[in-house]
């Protein structure tokens, strides 16, 4: 009995020593080496792809923002996004999805309300949005709640409203959207998309020049 206890202790000791050695390697040296290379070669990206406008940081090109006024292009809904519930000395953005199911009545209502709002907001004199025109990404929350992109169809649908609110011609705003549309990578990876923050920065510049 004593013997087997000693054996177990010896084995656990070996396990612990192995863990500590491998922790130094994979938990200290590896992340530090990667960080060193990352900061040397791709500092901007490694630090969050921050975007500046008028000399100020206005966010990250990778992180979607909420609360754009109707003068600007709207991003996707983010009903799963939260703020931190522990360590509340901070006000962290808590990424997340709604996790509501395809047959959820709550989700049906969210989608219907969002669709009604998109139709109402984007119908301006001379241009009426039909509910069937509204693409799925405009009325659903993304997985992260931080989706930086919208589909070209959703951007297109907002052009008339944005043009009217900024006193710009529809053609001019349309051109702006086209210039900010990214196609599929190599023609087949992912989906075509428009980065909302970058588009709105360009829009603000354009409106200021007018």
């Amino acid at each position, binding site marked *: 009995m004593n013997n087997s206890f000693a054996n177990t202790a010896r084995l656990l000791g070996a396990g612990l020593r192995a863990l500590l050695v491998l922790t130094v*390697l994979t938990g200290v040296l*590896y992340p530090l080496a990667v960080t060193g290379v990352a900061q040397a070669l791709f500092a901007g990206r490694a630090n969050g792809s921050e975007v500046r406008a008028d000399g100020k940081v206005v966010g990250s090109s990778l992180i979607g923002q909420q609360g754009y006024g109707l003068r600007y292009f709207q991003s996707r809904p983010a009903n799963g996004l939260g703020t931190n519930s522990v360590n509340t000395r901070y006000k962290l953005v808590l*990424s997340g999805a709604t996790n509501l199911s395809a047959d959820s009545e709550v989700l049906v209502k969210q989608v219907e309300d969002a669709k009604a709002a998109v139709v109402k907001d984007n119908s301006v004199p001379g241009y009426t949005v039909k509910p069937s025109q509204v693409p799925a990404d405009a009325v659903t929350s993304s997985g992260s709640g931080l989706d930086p992109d919208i589909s070209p169809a959703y951007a297109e649908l907002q052009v008339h409203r944005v043009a009217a609110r900024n006193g710009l011609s529809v053609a001019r705003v349309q051109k702006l959207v086209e210039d900010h549309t990214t196609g599929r990578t190599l023609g087949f990876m992912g*989906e075509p998309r428009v980065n909302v923050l970058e588009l709105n920065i360009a829009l603000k510049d354009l409106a200021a020049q007018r």
Partner: protein
Amino acid sequence: MGPVLAGVLQLLALTGALALVHIPAGTYMARVYSSTRHLRVERWIYKGIGADPDTEMTWPAYLRGVLAFSAAGVLFLYLLQRLQGVLPGSLHFASVNPAQSFNTAVSFVTNTNWQSYYGEQTMGHVVQTAGLAVQNFVSAAVGIAVAVALVRGFARSRTGELGNFWADLVRGTLRILVPVAAIAAVVLVACGAIQNFSGIHEVGQFMGGSQQWNGGAVASTEAIKELGTNGGGVFNANSAHPFENPSPFTNLFEIFLILVIPFSLTRTFGVMVGSVKQGYAILATMFTIWLGFTALMMWTEFAHHGPALQAAGGAMEGKEVRFGIGGSSIFAVSTTLTSTGAVDSFHSSFTGLGGGITTLSMMLGEIAPGGTGSGLYGMLIMAVIAVFIAGLMVGRTPEYLGKKIGGREMKLAACYILITPALVLVFTAASMALPTPPHSMLNSGAHGFSEVLYAFTSAANNNGSAFAGLNANTDWYNTMTGLAMLLGRFLPMVFVLALAGSLAEQQPVPVTAGTLRTEKPLFTGLLVGAILIITGLTYFPALALGPLAEGLA
């Protein structure tokens, strides 16, 4: 080009990349585990451990190594979280409570990476990088080590020796996981994944005001999180978060990382047992299931049945625009057919049938291609069972790779395939029967049941993904999913290593005209059939109450 065609092309590109890489990668891994030479740094490590890497171990000794190392891992990770409040470099985050610390420690050591916490607000830099990410490496290396031990059981004869656990652990980490992860991490940073230790900082917003972000060693974690089929994200949104998975290319690249070791290990297996054709038969089985499930997933997600998705006009709830439905479908199937559990889209909001496919993928035992190592040993157990069924049909003593599958071998294989379903069904039933656990459900009806079924399927199979509406941060779920993860990881390993020991002692039987040719397509067909039928019979009633009821409504 439409989204469906783009999705299919992404699937083809991924298949092409895996086809190119699996042969050199698999052959290299076979060399790693067969080599008699030690690198200088490895000698230092063995000295540090106090282990002789050239001592051959019998199966009980090998198992003791696995268990001792894993027990040390759980203990260390538990303490690290409990002490977070006083650790430097932890952003002044509080210590994690006991139930959640236990759950998380077990979760990462068992290669599950179930997360009942929100990463960005709970775990500081030290716990993330020196605790959780370390287990991403070593739990994967342990999985491969056990698989290699089983392969040695098939390859060797008249010996009880299965290799040296410490050597297999260190080599897998040093010669395979670290170099590939380092390259992959730099690729991810180049595409936009973050890698810094700047902690929490305030960033301005377009409309004024500011937002707070957490930094972190995200790219370095992301690389090994996928490569080691772990799945635990730095952020709550996991690989849907743009800092973890910034572009359509990184999405495919991450799926590639998930699949590359499990698929390549079939080559390692073929080389080590002296017949690469045997490896191809296993590879074909895995690939058939993976391709079939992905095709089914794309079909149901593009069809977007379900009232909310119909109202929206597409299954985009819980999915990112940059990945689209095609990229999200491939990721969802790949992450649940392996033991990864990382997500680039949220499975709970998939169509009813789509959610059912992710659940069924895990229920297959995560063997197509499965987790790093665990996929191969799980699949070889199924091969043993398929050979046994074939033997019953023709009335011959079953053999596989020249080893007789007798009573002892079958008992071990049967125990292996029974343990996980028993854990899943018992824990799910208990959670449904008790008064308070059902309160954790977010959705009601069939989907609410699916959330609980999914949780225990994910835990017992060491996947880690979730129908994440379920509030799993309760004492019940933290404790019970913790137990399911522990038992679901280590009991099967006991049976695998016992089987390996028993096979290694046998003298090989010669191949005759009556031998079942396990390298032929016929056997692949038999194996696919056995896997689907055994899993189907086991889980059909549970699936009918959850995903099928929702999907066919």
